[in-house]
Every structure is written in C-alpha cells, then in structure tokens.
C-alpha cells in the first residue's frame, strides 16, 4: 500500500472530503485555500482562493457540482467545483468550524464558534441546486447551543435529525425541521470534546472521535452507543470504510506536547479497527505530526489522511486488504451464498 503524498498545503490540514464517486478529493488547511485533487493519481485539479483565514471545514454536494467551505474569517463560501468560481459568501459573527450538505444537497448546515459574547450555534442554509441561480441570504434555521458549544454536526438519514457533538463530550439530536433538541447524551467522557463525526453510507449511524482517546459508533435514531474503539492517544478524526467492516482512527499527541516526548512515542499512525469486533487490526505510519483528519473513499478503494505536518497521504488499498476476513465472517458469507 504505497501512499501518494499530496504536498499542496503549507500548513496543518484541517479536513479532507471525498466526493460521492470517490474520484475527487477536497482538502482544506490553515493556509487559506481549498485544494481539489484527483484521488486515483494525486494530480491537483485546482485551488479555490478567497478565504482570509484558516479554513476549518469543507463539504461537497452529492452531484459534485458545488463545494462549501467554512473558515476562521467568519464566512461560509460556496464554490463551483468545475471552474473555481465563488458563488456565494455568507457572513457570520464568529468562525465557522464545520459545514455539511444534507443527503440531497439542498441544504447546508454550518457550526459557528462561541466567541466574543456570541454563543456557538448551528445554522441551516437553503441551497439552490442551480449552479447559476441566485443563492438565498436567509437562514432557514438557527440552533443556539447555550450549554456547551457544538464542535461537529451533521445530517442524519432523510434529513430527519441534525446530530451535533459538543465540547463537553455529549452528543445531541435535534429535529432538523424545527431545531428542537430531542436528546442530549454524555457519549464521551465529560469535557473531552468531540473532534469528528462521520456518517455511515445510509446515515443511520455515525462514528465519533474524541479527545478521551476513544471513538464510538452511535445510532442516529436513539443515540445508542453500538461500538467503542479504545486507543492510547487523543483522537482527532474517525471514519468508516465502505465495502469492508473497518474503521480508521487518526490522532496523536497534541502538537504542543510533541516536543516533550520521544519521536517514536508520538503515535502519529492511522489505526484500523474491525468495526464489529472492536479489535485493532493494523496501523499505517507515515505522518510526522498528529493526524488531524481521515476520510474513506465512498467506493471503498482508498482512504486519505491529513496531518499537522501539512501533507495529505492517499492510500489505495491492496488486494490483501480486501481479502482479509475473520473466519466467522467467511463462515457467514458461505452461509449467505448457499
């Protein structure tokens, strides 16, 4: 599994996203521009320039026509993927830490930072799917997080719920139409913030990553914790591989603590766990800083990781990866075929 090293950013990566077809890869970093890459060979498609601050987050519509990016310059910007044209800028009082399109790409949610007297909030914007059409300024919905600010958020299946992860380690379920809080459960250790939340294919469950060194698989409908993956380092990101029942966790000693430990003790590895059995099955080394984000190709052929070291590493899985199965899994497969 030879990685393709994408060195297009000058500063630490913050988020990576594959498009639905798995052929394009979007990466954002603290260096103020969005990069788009061809995932199969690592060639750069282009950059989207315009942000005036570190970019925290990016997302792409299901049809790969538009991307949205959220930045520390207090804006969400909408771009045309093909041309790099800026379609719309929404201004907010504080930085935007997370954006995500819903299943159809008709709505966009953004998580805003708590700062300077402003409470953290989750806003929902309507998106006009027509690439040349007018985008509305109006916010469809605003959910104010007055208890603990949201750090990550996303849309559940059929846009039924908005699920948010908080700074205090809890996870909330909101009604996506009304913004009413339906549930708030302490999923992770108290005051160990959630650092990532990524969806399964059908958005019926999601995986969380937290500073409490664990990652959890949680059901969307009732926030039941299905699986727990313990690790030995604070986690920054977690994703699930389609096709195979694995999860990938990324993390490492926080950047500020790195100098106090020996280099090999930094734990800058992507960790693979079996999604169902919760066993650790392998690690992939390579980054020389903590992993800030990991993302799996929706077609299941590859995964990418972005680190504090400013590199994106795209790994295409080998045959061995697809052949690897537990005996009980093979047993089940044989039973299914009969």
């Amino acid at each position, binding site marked *: 599994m030879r990685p393709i090293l994408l060195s297009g950013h000058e500063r630490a990566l913050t988020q990576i996203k594959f498009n639905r077809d798995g052929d394009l890869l979007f990466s954002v970093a603290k260096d103020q521009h969005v990069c788009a890459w061809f995932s199969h060979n690592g060639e750069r498609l282009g950059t989207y320039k315009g942000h005036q601050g570190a970019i925290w987050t990016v997302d792409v519509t299901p049809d790969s026509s538009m991307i949205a990016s959220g930045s520390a310059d207090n804006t969400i910007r909408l771009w045309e993927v093909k041309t790099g044209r800026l379609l719309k800028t929404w201004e907010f009082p504080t930085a935007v830490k997370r954006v995500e399109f819903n299943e159809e790409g008709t709505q966009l949610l953004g998580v805003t930072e708590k700062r300077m007297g402003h409470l953290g909030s989750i806003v929902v914007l309507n998106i006009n799917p027509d690439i040349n059409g007018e985008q509305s300024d109006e916010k469809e919905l605003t959910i104010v997080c007055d208890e603990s600010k949201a750090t990550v958020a996303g849309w559940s299946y*059929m846009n039924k719920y908005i699920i948010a992860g908080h700074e205090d380690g809890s996870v909330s379920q909101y009604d996506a139409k009304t913004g009413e809080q339906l549930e708030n459960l302490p999923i992770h250790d108290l005051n160990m913030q959630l650092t990532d939340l990524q969806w399964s294919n059908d958005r019926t469950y999601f995986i969380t990553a937290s500073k409490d060194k664990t990652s959890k698989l949680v059901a969307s409908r009732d926030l039941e914790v299905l699986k727990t993956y313990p690790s030995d380092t604070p986690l920054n990101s977690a994703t699930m591989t389609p096709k195979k029942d694995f999860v990938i966790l990324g993390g490492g000693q926080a950047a500020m603590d790195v100098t106090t430990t020996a280099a090999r003790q930094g734990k800058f590895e992507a960790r693979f766990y079996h999604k169902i059995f919760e066993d650790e099955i392998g690690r992939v080394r390579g980054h020389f800083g903590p992993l800030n984000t990991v993302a799996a190709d929706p077609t299941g052929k590859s995964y990418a990781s972005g680190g504090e070291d400013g590199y994106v590493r795209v790994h295409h899985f080998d045959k061995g990866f697809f052949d690897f199965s537990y005996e009980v899994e093979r047993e089940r497969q044989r039973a299914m075929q009969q």
Partner: protein
Amino acid sequence: MAPSFDHLRDADVDEDDYDENEIDLSDLREKYEVQLEQGFDTFVVIDGLPEVTEEQKPKLVKFLLKKLKSVGNTKEESIFMPMADNGKSLRFAFVEYSTPAEAAAAVRQLDMVPLDKKHTLRVNKMTDIERFGREGRVEEEYQPPMIEEFKEKEHMRSWLADPSGRGRDQFAMYRGESVGVFWNNEKDTPENVVDRQHWTESFIQWSPLGTFLTSVHQQGVQLWGGPSWTRQRRFAHPFVNMLDFSPGEKYVVTWSNRPISIPDEGHPQLAADDDGKNYVIWDVETGKPLRSFANLDLPTTGPDGQPLKAPPKFPWPAFKWSADDKYVARLTQGQSISVYELPRMTLLDKTTIKIEGVQDFEWAPATVQRDGNKKYEQLFCYWTPELGSNPAKVGLMSIPSKEVVRSLNLFSVSDAKLHWQSDGTYLAVKVDRHSKSKKSQATTLEIFRVKEKGVPVEVVDTIKDTVINFAWEPKGDRFVVITTTEPAGQTAVPPKTSVAFFCPEKVKGNAVGNFKHLRTLEKKNSNSIYWSPRGRFVVVATIANAQGSDLEFYDMDFEGEKPESDKDLTANLQLMNVNDHYGVTDVQWDPSGRFVTSWASAWKHAMENGYHIYDFKGEQLREEPLEKFKQWAWRPRPATLLTKEEQKQIRKNLREYSKTFEQEDAERVAGADQAVVEERRRMLDEWYAWRQSVEEELEWEREELGLSNPADAATAKGEEGEGEVIEEIVEEVLEETEEIVQ
C-alpha cells in the same frame, strides 16, 4: 430535626402559649448544675500503705512525701491519712497535688511502685474511685466475664491454592485512585480478585510472607487479607510515612516524620507516653504497640569539632530486624548499636553496644550455622572508619553473646557498603579506598565466607572504577557488579557503565572455589541488577534513564556450548534476550522466578505509564498501557512446606509433572480460542440483526414520506448517463535479458 427558619410553624413562633413557670426544668438542671464539691481532679488515693499508729504516722508521711514530690508539688498538710477507731491507720491516704496534671502524673508513675519489700503503692485518681467504686457500681456477686463465641477466622493463606489449579501468582496494582489484586494470566488479561477505589492514600505494600496487603492512610496503616479482603489489623500511627515488617511478619515498625501528638481525649491505640515519638513498633498478632521511639538527633559535628556532612536524607530502615524476628536493632551513628529483644522490647542486657565510630550495620538475612559453632546465633556486621591512627574495621558480631566473631582491619577507606548473600553464606563488603593523596579512588570487594571455619576473607581484584551497584545471586554464590568511570553526579548525561559478572572457580568436592571474574560488558547504560529469586537468571536494566530503557535477560547456567576460557568457572553466561520498555522506572520478579514485570510509574513521570510482563527468558508476554499507573507489587509467598527430599523427588520427576501441566495449558488455550470465536459469531449476528431492523425502519419511513431511495436513484442515473471510460495503461516488465551478439 429542628425546624428550620423556612418551616417554622405558627405554633413555634407564638410565645404567648405557655407560662415559663410551668416548664419542668429539673432534668436540665440536674444535667448542667455546677457541682462545686467535685473538683477532685487534683486528688489521688494511695493504697497499700503499711498500718501505722498515731506516733509512727508523721514518719510515714514524711517518707511518703519524698516519693510523692518526685512527680509533682504537694506538702505535708495535703496528705490526709484517716485513722481507725483502734488508733491504727486504715492503710490508705488522700493526697492533694497543686494541679490535675501532677495528679495524673502521680497515677502514671507511682502506681505499682514498691514502697518497701512488703508494700507496693497503688495510686488512683480520686475521681476514678468515685466513678468506678461508688456504691452500686460494683456488683456484690462475681459475674464471670462473657466469653465470645468462637468464630472461625478466614484462611489467611487461601490464595496459595490457586482455584484454577495452575499455581499462579497474585499481584497488586495501584493505578489512578484504585488498588486491585489480580491473578497473573501471562498473556491474557489478569483475572481480577478484588478492586477498590481509594484503598490507600499513598502506597501499598505486601507483608514479607504475602499474608497481608498494607494500605497507608493519614490515620495510620491497615492490613487486609483473607479471601474476602477484610481489614485484619489497624495500626493508628497518625501521618505515617513508612513501614517495615519483620521477616516473619510478627512485628512491624511504622515511622512518621511528624512526632506523634496524643490529643487530650486520648488515642485509641497509643498512650500518652507515645507523645512526641516518631517510630512505633507493633505486634502484628495483637495489633498493640510495643514501644515507641523518637527520631535520633544526629550529631552535626564530629568528635574533632569538624562539622559533619549532612546525613543522607533520612536513614530507612532505621530499625533492622534479625532473621528470626527475635531482635530489632537501631544504629546511633558513630556511637553504638541498640539491640532490643522482642517482644518485650527491652535492651539486650540492658545496655547498648558501644562501637566507636560505627557507620552502618546489617543483620544476616538468615540464621547462620557457622562451622564449629553449634549454638544458635544471629549475626550482624558493621563497619567503623579510620579513627586517628586506628584502622577502619569491619566486624561480625554474634547475638545474643555479643561476641565479635571476625574483625578485619582496612586502610585508606573512604566508604564501605555491606552486602549479605540471601542465605547469609557470604558477606561482601564493598570498600572504596582512596590513595594517600586522596586523588584517585579504587574499590575492592572483601568477601567473608561466613560458614567456613574461621570465617576466611577473600579479596576480589581491585576495581579501578566506581562501583554503583552490586547484587548477589539469591541462594547462590555468583554476583554482578556495575561500575562507571566517573562517580554518578548531577550530570545531564550519566556516564557509560560496565557490567561485570563474577563466579567461583571449579574445585574438587563440595567446596566453593575462589571468586573469579567471568566477563565484563562495556559501554552500557545499565544501572540496575535484578536477580531471579531462584537464582540462575538475572536482568540487567537501565532504569529511569533518558539514555535508554533496555532490559537484558542473562542466563548464568546456559546449557549450550561453553567457551574454552570459562572451563574452570562455575558459570556459563548467555544473553537470552533484550527488551526495550520506554520510560521504565521499576522492575520486579514474581516470587516463583517465572515472570518479570517492568513498569513506568506515574510517580516518576507521566509518559507511557503502564506495565510489561516477560517470562524469565525475556520473551514479552503482555503489555498494558494504563493511565496514572503507579505501583505494581507481586504478592510474596511463604517458604515451601515441602522437605528437601520431597523437593528433590519433584525435581527428579519434573518431566511427569510438566506433561500434565502442558496438556492443561494446551486445552485451556484451545478453549479460550473457541470462546473468542463464539463471541465474534455472536457480535456479528447481533450487528446484522441491528442493521436489518434499521434498514427496514428506514425503508418504511421513506415510503411513508413518498421518497425514493437515493441509492436506487443513483444507480438508475448511472445506467442512464453516458458511461465514463477510464483507461489505465499498466506497463509491467516481466523479464529483462541482455545478450551480446558476436
């Protein structure tokens, strides 16, 4: 509960409801009335006086007064001796002291003091007599004391019979705020026996035979044991810092750097005499204190008026136990050694043993049978530095006879360390010598062969470098020495060290030959030596060192080929394995010598806290990082109950025994694998069942809302749309050959 302000009812506030005179206050009056005539705290009653007539009385009073004045202030007029009608005294007297404290002192110090051959004083507080002896308090008829029904105690050594029948060892772990005791399961997760939050406040310690687990608290020390882990004993030494058991677990000494202060209302275990003391020696069986001691004031100036260098932090253990639990001794540096006989805790022959200049002493760790000496004896060794023109001395003293059985004169000594071998067969004295100019240093090892006739002393060749560590093979006759070129100071990078192995030469018969150098390994960072408790295997490790953290496992009796150069020696050294444990702070062998644990304790640093388990060969079996891991302690085992013959028999038939054990092990592994597979099968089924329920629910909800499945839509769209053709050209070189055509 008293009504709070918020809940006051009207009736509570209404004051007009009652007449003050109607209230019956007699009970309160009785309770709080000031009883003027009861200020009897300064009075004591003295019993046991001789019977005297009116004429003899002043003489007795005068005589008595002398004794009474020794503890406090009183005068002749304050002694009242009642006389009977027949003109003779009633053999008791009342005495008034000037303060209650003096009266209390009189009770404490004068009670049971003999007045003459026939009479013994009994002194009691007046108030006590009132309290206990008042009419009605003493029953007229004798009531035999209630004897509590016998309750069988828990079996304190039940753990030795491992329920799994595998003879596993237990260990205790202190991590985070909780302490747990576990069975060692080698590679697998240790099996928990008991786990308690906040079981100890500072550290844990096993008693030497493994009977008790000791927890240390601000209020004192507690011992726990038995299958239910109930509290067995409590030694309430406030602010205790350290404790040390006697080798046979009969006694324990506790120490606190804060002097004990006994509150006025008394202390549940300690008496007023213990006030101001730092050490307490307790009897484990009864849980009672035997005697307490204060810290010794170390002299700050030497005999020649020169200020002495500060003593090393605090000397611990200060009280050292003899191997048979019969004596405990303390050193007064430079002056004497005080040997106390247990359990009475009185000085042996009522005097300390004066040894001028004595610096250190060490009891033999076992009761030694010297050649040509049939008598029972305990030995301790001590050393004294050069004093004036007298040479430095190492002495070996036998207790209780106090006879010096061997003494060795040494010159140019700057320091000496005493190392007993575990059976007391050898005593190695590591002597640091300086040249006349005091510029260069050298170390010699003087080895006393304690069990041989006349205690011969052998000198092992001079070592130029500074010896930083020395360790005897337990129950054996080999040792390991670690040396370094410079003295280990406060340098950032500790200097390189060398590890040297020594063993006796081969000689005919049963005798042990001269000690010879076997091998030296140079340019190491190693600083610690850990012998297996059974001997033969030794771990040489680099502990708490930034340069490295390696553990080297050596076999001293390697069964492979022996180098020609070592053919006359009784050892064959072989490095079996090297392991690296980042940040290791401690290493400990299990009591059976089968496993070694190394751990990184949060007490020393916060990185990579956790433990590793290795087998004796150095193969790593298990690794567990644990947040805030503090301490690991293998539970010691008492000595085996099998006789020498029985042990020999087992060794002879070892193959037979191990066969059954190996079979059991194999079965267990197979069983565990089966269990894992079953568990996985269950998890897989559970997962797919959950997925099915969720998918059905999703489908149903979709239909309800009249939505189509986006996944279906995507595939439909993909079929309609133009298919994209991606061409990938792969070039693969199968073979390259070069032919030269002529």
